[in-house]
């Protein structure tokens, strides 16, 4: 039986919970290491190593380097492992200052100068973005089934109807307090970025009525381009479907909530590394 392990770096264990919700691997894979549910102290030799969480402390760095040597295939799982995720907010200058002041006073673990994605430290064979990736996506990455088909973007999987007669003039979505069923969230004045976000989640958030925050990262069209292109594309969608001023969209897109996820592949392009190849991203 093939063996796999899950290495948890600085993250929230949401990816692990999602993995546990996908139970069909139980008969075909043996889970040998995952601190959340198994009392094992070290990562043994494994066929597949899933790494979740970002590299935040020097201990993360040490654990990751050591575990990567024992794995035949390494998969970066979740937004944190791919771009730092929510902990990335801690890299804003003003927050960093607060951090450092507190770190000295309270003997916090040693933080790295900034949070780093897993592939800045070790070679990654596949990427599984999502916050967290759905159980279905975990199954797809473990078994690579040939019949696994996903929509190119969240929009394609969503199924809400776009309407020409509804053109909001401001982002009024959350003020309405309710969501019309079956009507596109953009037509209702929500800031939804599903039009350029990678599909595969089966539009888990938008179908019940929460706008897409882009946790799966850019779709294949934008993955190897600069983040500004992704940005421009969202602007174009809003210009075509609404009468909301471009500046309002721009401000909203740069808010911390969306900054969590937007640019999660391309922001890393500035470090001089080549963009992540789309064949490796599920």
């Amino acid at each position: 039986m093939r063996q796999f392990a899950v290495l948890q770096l600085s993250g929230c264990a949401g990816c692990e919970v999602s993995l546990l919700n996908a139970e069909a691997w139980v008969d075909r894979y043996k889970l040998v290491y995952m601190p959340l549910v198994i009392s094992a102290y070290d990562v043994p030799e494994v066929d597949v190593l899933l790494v979740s969480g970002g590299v935040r402390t020097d201990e993360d760095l040490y654990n990751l380097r050591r575990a990567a040597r024992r794995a035949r295939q390494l998969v970066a799982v979740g937004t944190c492992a791919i771009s730092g995720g929510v902990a990335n907010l801690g890299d804003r200058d003003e927050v960093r200052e607060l951090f450092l002041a507190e770190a000295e006073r309270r003997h916090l673990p040693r933080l790295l100068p900034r949070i780093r994605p897993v592939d800045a430290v070790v070679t990654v064979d596949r990427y599984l973005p999502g916050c967290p990736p759905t159980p279905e996506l975990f199954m797809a990455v473990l078994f690579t089934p040939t019949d696994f088909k996903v929509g190119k973007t969240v929009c394609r999987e969503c199924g809400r109807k776009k309407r020409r007669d509804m053109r909001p003039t401001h982002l009024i979505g959350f003020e309405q307090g309710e969501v019309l069923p079956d009507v596109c969230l953009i037509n209702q004045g929500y800031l939804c970025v599903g039009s350029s976000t990678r599909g595969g989640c089966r539009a888990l958030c938008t179908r019940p009525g929460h706008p897409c925050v882009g946790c799966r990262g850019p779709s294949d069209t934008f993955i190897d381009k600069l983040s500004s292109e992704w940005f421009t594309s969202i602007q174009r969608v809003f210009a075509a479907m609404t009468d909301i001023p471009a500046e309002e969209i721009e401000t909203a897109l740069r808010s911390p909530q969306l900054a969590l996820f937007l640019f999660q592949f391309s922001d890393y392009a500035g470090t001089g590394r080549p963009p992540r190849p789309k064949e490796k991203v599920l």
Partner: protein
Amino acid sequence: MPTLIFPLSRIEGHAQVVIEVQGGEVISAHFQAIEFRGFEYFVQGAPAEQMPVIVPRICGVCSTAHHVAAVKTRDFCHRHTTAPMIQ
């Protein structure tokens, strides 16, 4: 002076118990939480509307509790009654 370190499992996050032993006697025992992301600091100044998306990532196991707490707090601040969709 030997120091024994036991990493803890079956919890969300990273923690360990450090026990210092000298001549067969335990000198000290400490529980250390060794993961730090700093939610307390980086949520300061972020708009309240965005908390329901940010705070569930504190813990993936009990994310619902964090999410509901954020929604209720925001409703309380704005003196809204919670929308039917959220209830």
